[in-house]
C-alpha cells in the first residue's frame, strides 16, 4: 500500500495548491496555533486540525507534526499515525501546480490510463512525484465527480473534460 501515491481524492482541495508565496513560517505557526486554540475543547479534533494546518502550511512536515503534537498534548506517534493513514495529508513539499488525472471507474473505462501513461513519460515522473523543476506534482484521483465528462483531469482547481494525450500537452503548455 502506498498511500502517498494513489489518492482516493475526488476533486479539489485548495490546501494543496494555494498559499505558496505568502507568510513566513513563524507566522504560519502562529496561525496553526490559533486553529488549535479554536478546537481545544472539542473531542476528536486532530483530523480537523491537520486539515487546517495543511491549508496554512501547504503540507505537513515533521516540524509541523511535532508542533501539533505538543500543542494538543498528544504523543507524536499518534499524530504521525493518523496523518499517515489518510491519503489527503502530504508530508512532502508540493509542486507549483497539482495535476490530478482521474482514474475513477467512469474515467478508467473511457481511457484515463492512457493519459497517466502519457504524462509519466512526458513529465518524466512517477505517480505521486513532483517534476524536477518543481512545477507539477502528478497524482491520480479516484473520481472527481465529473464522470459525465470522462476522462477528466484536474489541474489545481480547474477540471478539464474529455481529455486526450494530445489535449493534455496543449493544456500543460499554458501553465
Amino acid at each position, binding site marked *: *500500500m*502506498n*498511500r502517498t501515491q*494513489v*489518492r*482516493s*481524492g*475526488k*476533486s*479539489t*482541495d*485548495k490546501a494543496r495548491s494555494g498559499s505558496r508565496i505568502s507568510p513566513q513560517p513563524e507566522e504560519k505557526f502562529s496561525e496553526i496555533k490559533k486553529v488549535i486554540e479554536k478546537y481545544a475543547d472539542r*473531542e*476528536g*479534533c*486532530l*483530523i*480537523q486540525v*491537520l*486539515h487546517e494546518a495543511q491549508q496554512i502550511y501547504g503540507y505537513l512536515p515533521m516540524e509541523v507534526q511535532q508542533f501539533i503534537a505538543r500543542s494538543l498534548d498528544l504523543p507524536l506517534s499518534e499524530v504521525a*499515525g*493518523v496523518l499517515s*493513514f*489518510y*491519503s*489527503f*495529508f502530504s508530508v512532502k513539499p508540493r509542486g507549483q501546480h497539482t495535476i490530478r488525472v482521474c*482514474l*475513477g*471507474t*467512469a474515467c*478508467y*473505462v*473511457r481511457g484515463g490510463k*492512457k493519459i497517466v*501513461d502519457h504524462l509519466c*513519460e512526458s513529465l518524466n515522473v512517477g505517480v505521486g512525484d513532483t517534476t524536477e523543476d518543481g512545477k507539477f506534482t502528478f497524482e491520480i*484521483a*479516484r*473520481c*472527481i*465527480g*465529473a*464522470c*459525465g*465528462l*470522462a476522462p*477528466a483531469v484536474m489541474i489545481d482547481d*480547474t*477540471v478539464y*473534460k474529455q481529455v486526450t*494525450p494530445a489535449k493534455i500537452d496543449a493544456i500543460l503548455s499554458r501553465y
Partner: protein
Amino acid sequence: MNIVRSHVLVCGGTGCTSSNSPEIIKQFNKELDKRGLSDEVKVIQTGCFGLCALGPIVIVYPEGSFYSMVKPEDVEEIVEEHILKGRIVKRLLYEGDLKEAKVATSLNDTNFYKKQKRIALRNCGVIDPENIDEYIANDGYQALAKVLTQMTPEEVIDTITASGLRGRGGAGFPTGRKWAFAAKEDNPVKYVCCNADEGDPGAFMDRSLLEGDPHSIIEAMAIAGYAIGAHQGYVYVRAEYPIAVKRLQIAIRQAREYGFLGEDIFGTGFNFDLDVRLGAGAFVCGEETALMRSIEGHRGEPRPRPPFPAVKGLFDKPTILNNVETYANVPWIINNGPEAFASIGTEKSKGTKVFALGGKITNTGLVEIPMGTTLREVIEEIGGGVPNGKKFKAAQTGGPSGGCIPESLIDTPMDFESLAAVGSIMGSGGLIVMDEDNCMVDIAKFFLQFTVDESCGKCTPCRIGMRRLLELVDKITSGNGTLEDIELTEQLCYHIKENSLCGLGQTAPNPVLSTLQHFRDEYIAHVVDKRCPAGVCKNLLRYQILAEKCIGCTSCARVCPVGAISGEVKKPHTIDTSKCIKCGACMEKCKFGAIVKN
C-alpha cells in the same frame, strides 16, 4: 415587493461548475443589469439537474426552456432574444426531443426524465441550495414540524418502517429497524450520523444531494434525532467535496438562525444540533465503525461487530448511521405518508434509487428511478444507449464491492434482490456501462488495484490476500497465466470473503467473482489463446499494418514515439513488433483504418 416574471436556473453542481457555469451566472447578471431587468428576472444557482454530459445547463422559466451546453458567449443571445423578446433560442435547446415539438413546459417530457421519479432528488435543480426560504417554500421543514408537534418517537419509527425504506449506502438494511434498535437503548447521550463519504469511484449522488438540497439532510437528521432520542448529529463528508461542504455549512447556519436546529426547536423543548466532520481520503472510512473512529479523530480502522453501533457507536454511545440518500427520502415519507412511498418499487425494495450513469453511455449523469426498473430501460431509454455504434457489453454496479451484469441479463430489474441474484449488488448507485472495447479481466484488475490501495491493513486476509489476488489477475492479463491460476483465483476470492474483518475485504473479491461467472471465456482466452478479445491488455496485443489499406502517408511513422514504424513514402509501412510499446498512437492517427490490433 418586485414581481419576478422570469427565473433563470443555472446548474451549479460540480459537473457544470467545471464546464464554466459560474461565468455564465456572472454573464446573466451583467446582461440583465445592462438592460435594467435585474428586478424582473432572477438568476438562481441550483444543484445538479442530472444531465451532466450536456452541461452547463440553463433553464428559463416560466417557459421551462431547457438549454444545454451553454457558453458564456451565448448568454447575451438568451437575454436579448428569449427574455427580452420572448423568442426561444432554438439552437441551444436540448436536442433530445424538445427541439421539434413546441417547447415542453416541463422537463418530464424528455426521454431522459420521463421514466424517472424524483423523490430523493426532488429539490435538486429546482431550488437555490444556499437559500433556506426556497427549501421552505417547497414544503421544507414541514416534516420536522409535523414530527415534533404531532407524532411520538415511536410513531416516527413506525412510519419509516411501514414505508419499507432501506439503506441506500450499500447494504440495504431496513432504516426503521435500525432506528428502533437505537431508540431502545437507555442512554441520555446518543448520536445521529450521516455517511457522506461516498467512496465508490464513479458515484456522485451523495455529492449532488448535498450540493443541491442540503436542508433535506439536515431536516431528516433532526427527525432521526427525535425518533431515537439524540441531540447531536455529525455529517461525515469527504474533504474532496468543497462545494458540498460549503453549502452544507451555509445550510446549517441558516437552519440555526431559523430555529430548526439548536435548542427548543419549534418551541417543543426538543434540542438538536449538527456538526460537519471532514474525511481525509480513505475509502475504508465509509464503513460504519471506521467512520466513527475517524470522527473521533483516530485512524479509520474498522472493528468487529457486535457490538453494533446502535448499541455502542460513536464515543461508545448508541449511534445510528445512514447514507445521504437514505436521509433525503425521510422528509418526503413523513409528508406524503408511508403508503405513498411503499406503493413505488417492488415487493421488497420500496421507493426509488438514484444512479450515477457513467462510462460508455450517451446521457451520462444522475437518474432516479423506481426500484425494479430494468437495466434495459435505464440504458436504452433514459441513458440513450451506447454511443458510437458500439455494442453494450456489461454494466457494473456497486463499485469495488459489486459486479458486472452481462448483456444477456439486461432485463434484470434494478432492486436489491434481483441485483444480488445475478452476482452484483445495488451498492451506493454507481452504474458504469461498458462496451465491446472494455476487457472484463482488466476491469476486475482495476477494482483490485483500488481495494489493494485502500485496504486499511488491519486484517491479514484483506491486506495480504488481496495483494496475492491482484498478482494472480495481473499474471493472467500479462499472458503468463494458466488454467490453474483461474481456479486458484476463484478459491482465493472465497477465502478472502469469508475471513476478512469488515465489509471492504468481505466484498472486495466480488468484481473478480462476477466477471468469472459471466465472462469466464474472456479469462480463458487470456490464458489459453494468450489473447485479449477486447484488445486492452497490452502484453497480449500486437499492432499490425494492413498492406492493402496503407497508402504510405507516413503519419503513423511520425507519431510513433519509439520509431517502430518504417517504410517508404507512398508504400505500405510495417511495424517492428520488438520495438512497439503498444501505445496505440499510430492506430488513432491512421485515417485509412490500415492499422489493426489483435
